[in-house]
């Protein structure tokens, strides 16, 4: 078995992994990126639409263009990347981290590292996860799989399409399938509000005249060999209105019903996960419960924009570098979700440094305030014209505001 040794191993070569690797390299560490696919870039490579990079690069790029910028940075620096490589196991062995991985070219490798950055991204929820009853014919795809089939493999998965769930990938695919000459009959969303970004609702549905059924549930799938149709039931006051159920004929269903951080590796390594995000619990350095292992991007929590992914990943890379050179925070205080907030990550802040917090809310509201409190005292109150669960919220807190923190202080953020 081949043995290698690096200061840091980054697991996953998508946007997060590349950004973290660049940061680690620039701070004087030897880095190896492990990537499953044949190229770096991750899921961005199949996102051929634009809208990426508005914050990061101040211009509008496609997914592959955005990934290309980071790939260039990785290559210019000569950072090692092992492609077509699957990580099998992450373990603590003799005080260091051992990453076991395999590729057809190298066989199994054991890579010893002092630090590891988790950047494995997320996966799509599927039919089983949302438990739609009915038959099990061909023609049911997750939106991301359909996107891969169309944009990279060059196939059309079906002609008459219904999209279940109004997540961003589903909305993007509604437009993509329309461009490919397919008929998109409807987008069905169980919630009373869309799950995707507002700009995608406008650009992908309204502009193509595709109806969006809010508060509707797909209650049956028909068809023996191939999908023939679905039953859709309206929800009123939380109850299914079976007498108002109707059928839509279609040969294809695309599911865009949420994303889940891909943490099987972390879980097997004994890293503790936060049930609210399905990502690891992390401290102010984005360090997981396994010392020297950091997490960033969609494996930590599902982001709305890749620009925030790379911001977070750079921070994880910089923190890992600092940790490698011996830095440890003198103190940290706990972060707690207040009213109407689903989660906040990281779960701890360092009162002596700048802290970037990302969070998601539980409600759709206009004209509200995001209130940051410490030990009951309001530190800051931020006006928000509009909030919704599909759009992440962020707060930056520095030492000047957190100076009063005591050992047992608790920071709370609430939406009021």
């Amino acid at each position: 078995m081949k043995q290698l040794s690096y200061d840091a191993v980054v697991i996953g070569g998508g946007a997060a992994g590349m950004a973290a690797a660049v940061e680690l390299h620039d701070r004087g560490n030897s880095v190896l990126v492990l990537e499953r696919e044949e190229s770096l870039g991750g899921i961005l490579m199949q996102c051929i639409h634009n809208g990426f990079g508005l914050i990061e690069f101040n211009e509008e790029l496609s997914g592959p263009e955005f990934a290309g910028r980071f790939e260039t940075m990785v290559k210019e620096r000569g950072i090692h990347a092992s492609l077509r490589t699957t990580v099998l196991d992450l373990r603590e062995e003799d005080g260091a981290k051992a990453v076991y991985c395999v590729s057809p070219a190298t066989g199994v490798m054991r890579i010893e590292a002092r630090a590891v950055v988790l950047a494995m991204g997320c996966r799509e929820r599927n039919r089983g996860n949302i438990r739609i009853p009915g038959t099990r014919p061909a023609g049911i795809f997750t939106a991301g799989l359909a996107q891969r089939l169309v944009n990279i493999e060059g196939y059309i998965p079906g002609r008459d399409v219904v999209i279940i769930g109004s997540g961003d990938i589903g909305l993007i695919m509604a437009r993509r399938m329309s461009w490919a000459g397919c008929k998109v009959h409807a987008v069905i969303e169980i919630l009373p509000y869309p799950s995707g970004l507002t700009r995608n609702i406008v650009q992908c549905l309204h502009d193509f005249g595709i109806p969006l059924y809010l508060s509707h549930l797909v209650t049956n799938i028909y068809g023996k060999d191939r999908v023939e149709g679905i039953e859709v039931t309206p929800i009123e006051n939380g109850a299914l209105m079976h007498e108002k159920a109707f059928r839509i004929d279609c040969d294809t269903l695309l599911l865009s019903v949420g994303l889940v951080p891909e943490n099987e590796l972390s879980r097997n390594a004994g890293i503790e996960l936060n049930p609210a995000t399905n990502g690891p619990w992390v401290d102010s350095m984005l360090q997981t419960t396994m010392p020297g292992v950091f997490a960033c991007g969609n494996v930590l929590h599902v982001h709305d924009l890749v620009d925030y992914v790379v911001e977070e990943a750079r921070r994880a890379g910089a923190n890992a570098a600092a940790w490698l050179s011996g830095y440890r925070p003198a103190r940290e205080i706990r972060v707690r979700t207040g009213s109407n907030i689903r989660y906040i990550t990281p779960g701890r802040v360092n009162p002596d440094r700048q802290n970037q917090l990302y969070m998601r809310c539980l409600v759709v509201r206009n004209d509200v305030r995001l209130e940051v409190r410490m030990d009951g005292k309001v530190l800051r109150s931020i006006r928000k014209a509009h909030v919704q669960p599909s759009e992440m919220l962020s707060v930056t807190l520095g030492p000047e505001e957190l100076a009063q923190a005591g050992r047992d202080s608790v920071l709370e953020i609430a939406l009021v």
Partner: protein
Amino acid sequence: MERFDVAIIGAGVCGANIARKLSQYELDVVLLEKEIDVSLGTSKANSGIVHGGFHDHISTLKAQLELRGALMFDRLHEELDFPFERCGILVAALHEDEMRVIEQLYLRGVENGVIGIEMCSRERMLELEPTLSQDVVGGLYAPSGGILEPYRFVFSLVESARRNGVQVKTEFEVEQVAREGEFWTLRAKNGQQVCARFVVNSAGLHADDISRAFGAERFEITPRKGEYYLLDRTMKAKPSRVIFPVPTEVSKGILVIPTVEGTVLIGPTASPANNKEDFATTREQLEHVLHAARTMVPGISENDVITSFAGLRAAYGSDFYIALSEKVPALVQVAGIQSPGLTASPAIGEYVKDLLKKAGLRLVEKADWDPYVHKVPRARDADPYALDALVAEEPAYGDIVCRCERVSEAEIVKAIRAGHTTLDGIKYYTRAQMGRCQGGFCTYRIIRILMRETGMSYDQITKRGGASAILKGTL
């Protein structure tokens, strides 16, 4: 036209066992299957249990065959390389009244000669299975009960039969039957034809239609639906033994089954199906499955659900119907094989062999019969050193296509070369697409490999043959 000594109609677990048994003798045997692959009917969608031998009385044919079959699995496992484990079976009583039924089951098990069966206190039950509800008051333990992957069992049986000379014809849906001299001529819907001196009707749900086509006994198979949920291997309250509720008159109830491959199955329901192709799951029945499973193992959550499916049991009367036809010559009926059909199936193979002998089939053992199949190493079972050795020999073992179940390209290629050329066939053979992402990440890669290995074009790629094409066009 090809002439055979025996034609077996239906390549489910019964047909496959009969075919393998007959492959031990100097006979020309053909196994006919209407679907594109074997094991795509009832044999793929059931609980996958080697039963404990205490549910039915020894006077019934099904209990006799169950008890005999259950003992044959260790050897079959050794020869045929399918996932199997004697994890033990528990029957959990949740109130005192149920303990009386438990006692009946225990006495029946003792009378049936079940090895190691015991009555258990609450404490013993919780020690054997800590995930059980705290409400458990006691129960039954049958340590010889076990679990297996039913489709892998059938695939291995068929492969073994093939290696020993049995011909397998898929997409052979028997439509017309004629008697010509000493032979039966079977004509398929797609025009294929074979003739055989003896025929075994092990057509599962369609055994009644086949019997009718022969002009033999008239009976009716009633499809009874069983719905299941499959739960992720990462679930918190994962049991290590099969857990049964106390049975009712009509059904063994909703079980919690840890599969050999690490996932957990809950189900089945038992409801009448609308027809023989009614494989749809329903909200009400699946709710019932979750509720019933949670009553026994409270830690089960809907968050653990990966997928749901339904299987149809071929119900006819209360016992198996395995006999020589009394109306027409040289036909063996193997019908009404419901639970414990999988457990009994190896014994059914022997039983049918004996019936054929009685009917005049000459059995001469082959000198060179090989009971073993070629073992396919699996990336998921290999430790890092073993996997490294596999990759050194065959680099495709280093290309992990299915991340959730850790299936390499090498295994997918082997599945295709063994004749599994649909997405479902590859799934059942390798487990690729069977994990938590349900093919979200690997389907496109499997399509690529299938096209490369078989030369099929994109529009010939199907989920399970017929009209189940995956792709509808190119850009």
